[in-house]
């Protein structure tokens, strides 16, 4: 393999460290405020969260339906159909940003900024807030209090997301991302081609789209669109923004539990899994040399790196079309989503998702050596393990059953673009993306029909809450237990052995769950692919 992508990967990780460590320091200050006024237990936290989502979904649904009647609509778009508005509202509120619509053709400036971009902030903040609640649970000594949901949301938005977004958006404008309220510009090209150039408040949305690991593009082509991501420099910034908070949270965690090694262990586990995936994708794309669905300014390597990052995190923005990656290459993003979005993962959701795997790993290791499983002084009982099992199994259940139903429905199979096993991959990818709240697509699938809009909408909703609620329940249970002091019998959870074990557990659970489905889709495609490309 060319050595250039390896240097790209290493430098990227170094830059990430330089940004994520100070970010972790800053985030930790927000997690542990001086005053704990109006903190509540996990049930209060969960109820506030659910109602906040319900209100958010209703508002966004109404806005998308009524956008045709509202101001700031220079292109005169009409309201979305009920099923598409349902899908889109859930998609943005659950931090998925699956897009069954085309941004430039069907969403008004008002709906973009007041609806979609706002949920980019709020859905990211909710994930981070849940991560905060879980971190605090490890420090409580039995009172069961995990925080105040509304206070967390406000703090995350105003003290983390907004300031970083302003700086990032200014940089993006500098590189060429528009920030304008003018209607689309009609031009006559120098060879006479007539074009209508879409504009809009793009930069402001772009910054939070990456920082909040949302990934919902202003335009249909997402971060491959030159107005969203004009240069390799803007591309590097976007890649760093995706991992900034997920990586920062691991370091913040180490500080919150007063044992920095725990945070570093989480970061390393994620970095190892991420690097393996990136190297594999470099290899597959380097061999295939496919340029279809890739932009010239990014080339093979920046496209591969971005694809790994966006699916490791639950971002789902794309700067290359994943459907056109090589067969094995396309399996890497698919598998990264199926691992449960824990390789850095979404803002907050990656952290609490990884903690679920940590608890599973500690439990299994405890069984092997005959010790009572405990993590950071909190005993892991049957209740916690039941919740871990629910949270880890809910997304595979949604993905596999959803895909199985879809291949039996003509409306669903008729939406497939590519023939053969690749067609099945399109469907499997859609459900994996929705249930794991990623939002990227094998976009040959024409997903804007009532079947997909409703089925994927439900997957996104239950994929989000099917994990968040068990996580909050675990947080509540830990918070009402006393923290036991470390003893000779404590299993160390920061050493290389544990890091390796954790990585293996993540891969094992994902691989065992999905191997049969993958064998029928990308693996079958790769093995049967005609190697006509040799002629070019």
């Amino acid at each position, binding site marked *: 393999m060319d050595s250039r992508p390896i240097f790209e990967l290493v430098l990227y990780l170094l830059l990430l460290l330089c940004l994520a460590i100070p970010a972790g320091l800053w985030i930790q200050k927000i997690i542990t405020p001086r005053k704990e006024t109006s903190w509540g237990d996990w049930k209060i936290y969960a109820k506030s969260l659910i109602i906040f989502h319900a209100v958010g979904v209703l508002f966004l649904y109404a806005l998308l339906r009524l956008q045709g009647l509202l101001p700031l609509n220079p292109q005169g778009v009409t309201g979305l159909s009920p099923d598409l508005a349902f899908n889109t509202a859930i998609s943005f509120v659950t931090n998925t940003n699956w897009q069954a619509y085309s941004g430039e053709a069907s969403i008004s400036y008002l709906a973009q900024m007041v609806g979609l971009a706002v949920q980019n902030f709020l859905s990211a903040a909710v994930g981070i807030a849940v991560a905060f609640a879980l971190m605090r649970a490890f420090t409580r000594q039995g009172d069961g209090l995990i925080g105040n949901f509304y206070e967390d949301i406000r703090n995350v938005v105003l003290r983390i997301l907004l300031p970083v977004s302003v700086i990032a958006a200014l940089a993006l404008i500098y590189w060429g991302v528009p920030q304008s309220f003018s209607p689309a510009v009609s031009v006559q*090209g120098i060879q006479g081609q007539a074009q209508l150039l879409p504009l809009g*408040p793009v930069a402001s949305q772009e910054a939070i789209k990456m920082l909040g690991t949302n990934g919902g593009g202003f335009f249909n082509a997402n971060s491959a669109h030159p107005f969203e991501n004009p240069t390799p420099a803007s591309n590097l910034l976007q890649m760093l923004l995706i991992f900034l908070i997920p990586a920062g949270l691991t370091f913040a965690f180490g500080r919150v539990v007063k044992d920095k090694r725990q945070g570093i262990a989480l970061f390393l586990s994620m970095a190892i899994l991420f690097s393996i995936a990136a190297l594999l994708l470099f290899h597959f794309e380097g061999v295939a040399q*496919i340029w*279809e669905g890739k932009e010239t300014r990014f080339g093979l390597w*920046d496209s591969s790196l971005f694809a790994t990052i966006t699916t490791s995190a639950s971002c789902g923005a794309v700067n290359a079309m994943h459907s056109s990656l090589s067969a094995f290459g396309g399996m890497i993003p698919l598998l990264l989503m199926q691992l449960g979005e824990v390789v850095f993962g979404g803002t907050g959701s990656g952290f609490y998702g990884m903690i679920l795997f940590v608890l599973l790993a500690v439990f299994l290791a405890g069984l092997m050596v005959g010790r009572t499983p405990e993590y950071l002084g909190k005993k892991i009982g049957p209740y916690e393990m039941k919740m871990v099992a629910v949270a880890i199994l809910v997304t595979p259940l949604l993905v596999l059953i959803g895909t199985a139903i879809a291949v039996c429905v003509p409306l669903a199979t008729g939406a497939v673009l*590519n023939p053969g096993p690749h067609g099945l991959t399109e469907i499997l990818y859609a459900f994996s993306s929705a249930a794991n709240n990623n939002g990227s697509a094998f976009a040959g699938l024409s997903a804007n029909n009532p079947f997909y809009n409703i089925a994927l909408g439900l997957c996104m909703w239950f994929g989000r809450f099917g994990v968040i609620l068990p996580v909050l329940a675990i947080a509540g249970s830990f918070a009402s237990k006393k923290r036991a002091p470390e003893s000779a019998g404590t299993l160390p959870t920061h050493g290389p052995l544990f890091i390796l074990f954790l990585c293996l557990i993540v891969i094992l659970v994902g691989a065992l769950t999905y191997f049969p489905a993958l064998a029928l889709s990308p693996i079958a495609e790769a093995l*049967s692919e005609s190697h006509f490309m040799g002629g070019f």
Partner: protein
Amino acid sequence: MLKYFWPSLKNLAWLTLITGIAYPLFLWAMGALLLPSQAKGSLVERNGVIVGSLLIGQEFLDSKYFQGRPSMTGSFPYNPMASGGSNYAGSNPAQKDSMVARRNRLCLENDCSLAPPPRELLEASASGLDPEISLRAARFQVRRIAKARGISEAEVAEVIKKNAIYSLWNLYGTDRVNVLQLNFVLDQISKKE
């Protein structure tokens, strides 16, 4: 549950005001003040008329112009109102067919005896609006353009060299040229002569 309704609505309302209205307006104002050209879409003027955006590719078919990547945008190539790629898999026979057709068309106009056309010119970009091609893809077209314009190949190569955009730190991205920019410069040279 009703007691959670008002705090939810209240928080949603004022966070919407801040992140949905104040935030984009503030950036709009900053953009208009500090970086007006970029904020308005990097539009290019010729003789007082806007002829496009430097960031959005255009379709060039005339042999005297550099040609960009193949485009699979909706309705027609390089349609900025319907950005996107083909999403074809490598295993899709339709992909093979379009690559063969593009190669045949390119080799009609260009000299393919020295080197086959770069893959980049046979395969469509992700956005369908890619404004750039690599230096290699530009050099591939030099002979055709020199002939069509009646200028020397060295002169065309010089234009490419002068307008090259290099990768970031020699690491991220591709060494490339902006197609619209190149054609703009070529037209200016032809006008002078």
